[in-house]
């Protein structure tokens, strides 16, 4: 694959950022958007706009078809067995909240346990915390090891008779650890426990096959997959979507509304109340096509090469301390520099056009465990090159110079 060619498909790189070429190393936070996605939003609003699933006029029918085409594309992309297992949400956060709310309502009682991990993003902890408050459930944490991983053995150790659901990240947004989801699911199912996977970092970077993974729920963020903001996906096995209560009430999700009672719509409408992010859903189809055109295997290979190169280069930089060393790692490198706070690193790198993130990356539990209030993080996307990594390293050396470090 030709990265220069791919990079040209992203208009953001056409312009200078503060007089520098943009070195964008913050894709774990949000990815940049290819022109086809941007254009699709413009075209839809300009030529094809209508609300979906309601009116019978020409535009409404066409828009509904486009909207449903994205559902089918996502289904195929993640190899779900049924298109009605794809629920659109405003993001992965809403997808997890949807499960926590509905599963919690129906299946969690006082003293029950939800098993999560110390690697989880706040969005896979806080929704469960609400249930700790409202239903007096307990949240257990599978611990991260010295390599920054959570192992199957650790998960097994934390499962008890009260464990009702296991919620794990596919790929840590801090250490980059890729968790053994298939093995975790297989073991959990042998105990009759469902598994929710936070796939925010998994979906843009790894080949997905829901039928093979066999997880019960998988949360996806559209804007990290070269798609628009305001769009996410909850994949859930059909049996769950049929079994669980609706999440939000409103138009579109009902079958019949009477003064004395209400019946709810069929899947997937049951979980899509109100007017959805129509243009974004339709444009998200272009993101899927973009990923398919390049091929996720090629993306994985490219990002693996970048990661190896970066780990090697930064590893040789004697002031840089890379956080975690997982055997199976995605394109995320969190690091610290002895004597320079991560926020200072991020500000100085920014001056060179190098965009990274600094802070706790919405993972305060993990940072507390690491004994670090903050880390700096470089994360990769399909458009990154080895030159970007070289520039990162050069800018780190500039930081050291400003702070008088050797």
């Amino acid at each position, binding site marked *: 694959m030709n990265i220069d060619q791919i990079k040209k498909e992203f208009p953001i790189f056409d312009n200078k950022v503060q007089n520098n070429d943009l070195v964008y190393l913050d894709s774990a936070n949000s990815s940049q958007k290819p022109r086809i996605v941007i254009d699709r939003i413009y075209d839809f609003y300009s030529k094809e706009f209508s609300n979906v699933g309601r009116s019978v006029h020409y535009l409404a029918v066409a828009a509904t078809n486009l909207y449903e085409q994205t559902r089918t594309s996502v289904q195929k992309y993640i190899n779900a067995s049924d298109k009605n297992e794809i629920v659109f949400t405003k993001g992965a956060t809403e997808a997890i909240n949807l499960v926590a709310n509905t599963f919690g309502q129906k299946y969690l009682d006082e003293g029950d346990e939800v098993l999560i991990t110390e690697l989880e993003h706040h969005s896979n902890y806080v929704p469960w915390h609400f249930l700790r408050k409202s239903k007096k459930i307990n949240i257990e944490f599978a611990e991260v090891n010295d390599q920054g991983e959570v192992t199957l053995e650790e998960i097994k150790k934390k499962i008890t008779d009260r464990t009702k659901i296991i919620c794990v990240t596919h790929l840590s947004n801090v250490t980059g650890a890729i968790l053994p989801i298939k093995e975790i699911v297989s073991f959990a199912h042998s105990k009759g426990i469902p598994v929710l996977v936070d796939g925010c970092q998994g979906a843009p970077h790894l080949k997905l096959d829901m039928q093979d993974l066999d997880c019960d729920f998988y949360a996806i963020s559209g804007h990290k997959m070269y798609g628009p903001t305001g769009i996410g996906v909850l994949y859930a096995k059909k049996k769950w979507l049929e079994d669980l209560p609706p999440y939000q009430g409103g138009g579109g999700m009902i079958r019949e509304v009477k003064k004395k009672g209400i019946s709810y719509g069929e899947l997937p409408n049951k979980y899509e109340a109100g007017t959805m992010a129509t243009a974004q859903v339709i444009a998200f189809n272009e993101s899927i096509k973009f990923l398919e055109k390049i091929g996720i295997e090629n993306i994985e290979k490219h990002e693996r090469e970048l990661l190896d190169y970066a780990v090697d280069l930064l590893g040789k930089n004697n002031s840089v301390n890379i956080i975690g060393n997982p055997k199976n790692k995605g394109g995320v490198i969190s690091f610290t520099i002895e004597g320079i706070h991560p926020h200072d690193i991020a500000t100085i790198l920014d001056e060179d056009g190098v965009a990274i993130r600094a802070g706790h990356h919405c993972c305060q539990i993990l940072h507390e465990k690491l004994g670090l209030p*903050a880390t700096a993080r470089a994360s990769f996307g399909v458009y990154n090159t080895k030159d970007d990594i070289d520039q990162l390293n050069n800018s780190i050396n500039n930081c050291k110079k400003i702070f008088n470090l050797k």
Partner: protein
Amino acid sequence: MNLKELYQEIILEHGKNPRNLRKTDNFTKDAKGNNPLCGDNVHIYLKLNDNNKVEDISFEGNGCAITMASASIMTDLVRGKEEKEVKEIVTDFLDMIKEKDELSTELLNEDEKTKLMCLSGVKQYPMRVKCATLSWHTLTSAMNNSQEIASTED
């Protein structure tokens, strides 16, 4: 933008070796502050004597060079001042960071003002203004005996 203005030698030096980074014995007032966006936190300890003068002031916490340097310089400057004078200095500093070009208080000498003005480099970095103001907001909380954790998010 100019990094040299932000990371002046005096900031780097105070950031690396913060003054008064400890806990005052028998403090009379204290407050915690944090910047929820980035996780920086400070805890200010204030000891006022019978004449309401700052007998000692110290802080604990961690953060970036700007956060630490600002707390360090602040604690150095307000020692020996009366509480109402401290309030005037805090207001003057926050006004300067927010909108004014210069400090106007007469409670500080030119040397002290020069030191504080080193922090004005953050004005060009809106995301970093909070680093410079965190300890000052927290000092205000301490003086007001506020039980709430001071926050840079209004």
